[in-house]
């Protein structure tokens, strides 16, 4: 599995997951996962439901802590062993550097779009109202949601909500963005507007790890694709190989079934 191109070997990985292991009781959900992502790289994770994709993604910012292995961001270990209090402090700082976008948006319904985007910058970075507003306007402009800045989430479509959720994450100026099936809950006609925003981020060389079922989207924006099944990375490689010419039988099977079942 070191066929990811010699041009990167001299670089130290930006996100480094080593021997990640996760169990819920007797159920082993992640089995010795290794993943290195370089700065500016975009990695797609595909695989059948229940294969552990979300668990892996959520382990990166410690929403679901690993039961074994290490996760590093640049030169910092994310899941390090610290006394509870210190760990809380540490993880809150780490999380500020990792943006996450959920399948179901998880916008704060009691806050306007503006309130959603400014909450964390104001609370955690001590931005003044004026600075936070400016920041929110910038980020919302980027995702094309500036005109809706004073709307409540309940007044937005799914695609609009997801774009706001992306702006909310971007407002913390993260080093990495994690997307967990960001378009799966959307009506088909709303998927494209969110994909466009993600493409824009790709052009800006944002480091991203994207769990997705949108194979054509993955093929068009990602540098690398991982296929996961039953808690292991079965195969990985550049998109043109993974989608056109996979070597592993399970990958072939998954893609065949997936494409057959998905005629959008």
């Amino acid at each position, binding site marked *: 599995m070191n066929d990811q191109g010699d041009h990167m070997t001299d670089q130290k990985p930006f996100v480094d997951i080593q021997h990640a292991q996760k169990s819920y009781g007797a159920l082993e959900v992640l089995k010795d996962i290794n993943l290195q992502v370089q700065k500016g790289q975009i990695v797609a994770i595909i695989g059948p439901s229940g294969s552990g994709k979300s668990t892996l993604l959520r382990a990166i910012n410690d929403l679901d802590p690993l039961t074994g292995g290490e996760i590093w961001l640049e030169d910092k270990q994310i899941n390090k062993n610290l006394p509870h209090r210190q760990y809380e402090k540490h993880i809150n700082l780490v*999380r*500020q550097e990792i943006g996450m976008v*959920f399948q179901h948006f998880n916008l704060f319904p*009691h806050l306007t779009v503006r309130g959603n985007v400014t*909450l*964390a910058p104001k609370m*955690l970075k001590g931005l003044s109202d004026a600075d936070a507003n400016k920041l929110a306007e910038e980020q919302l402009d980027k995702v094309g949601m500036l005109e809706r800045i004073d709307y409540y989430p*309940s007044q937005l479509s799914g695609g609009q909500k997801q774009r706001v959720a992306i702006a909310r*994450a971007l407002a*913390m100026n993260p080093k990495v963005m994690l997307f967990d099936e960001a378009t799966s809950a959307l009506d088909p006609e709303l998927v494209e507007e969110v994909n466009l925003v993600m493409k824009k981020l790709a052009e800006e060389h944002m480091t991203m790890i994207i769990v997705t079922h949108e194979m054509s989207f993955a093929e068009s924006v990602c540098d690398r694709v991982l296929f996961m099944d039953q808690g292991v990375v079965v195969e990985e490689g550049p998109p043109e190989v993974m989608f056109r010419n996979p070597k592993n039988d399970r990958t072939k099977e998954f893609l065949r079934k997936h494409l057959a079942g998905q005629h959008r």
Partner: protein
Amino acid sequence: MGLDFTVIPQYLDIILWGALWTILITLGAAAVSFIGGMILAVIALYAPKLVRLPFRAFAFLFMGTPLLLQLFLIYFGLVQVGIDVPAVMAGIIGLGLHFAVYNSELFQTGILAVDKGQIEAARTLGLGRMQALRKVVVPQAIRDVIPPVGNNMIALLKDSALVSVIGVSELTLSAQRAIGSTYRPFEFYVLVAVIYYIINLFMEAAQRRVERRVQASR
């Protein structure tokens, strides 16, 4: 002895002062019940077992016994342990604690009903546990329990009449004073009932207004 409402104007200022006190006591006790209810709810949900238990016992006792009995306990109990608070304070504390227990039940339900994804989203941004609770969970819980908490506050207004029994000079006790010198209970109690009814209408209107205003944020 028939009815004679002409005695009222002479005592109207006393009665209206009483009404003002009733409003102040209601507001004060409402504030206590709101803040106290939220604290009790957070303790009930998040505190370690050793802290939770005595509070559970307290809530159990306060839900199972009459408010009037609790007012006697607080008024005379405070005196007993050497704390000499004015009756008004005892009344506000007693009413406030009583309704804090009821509000706490509502807040707990409200907090638990907030989607888990909300906490995750807040934590993902880097907010700490308490920050997420304060800025994301509690505001939504409050918003969702406005109707039943509003009903509690309206009940509180009517129950504030009970503090007259421990000697708080609010609306009911003012009427009793006027009756003491006029011997006209029917007239004054009806007057007082009308005043309570009017305050009650205002509170109901306020409740509807608040409910309408939070509609957009769900």
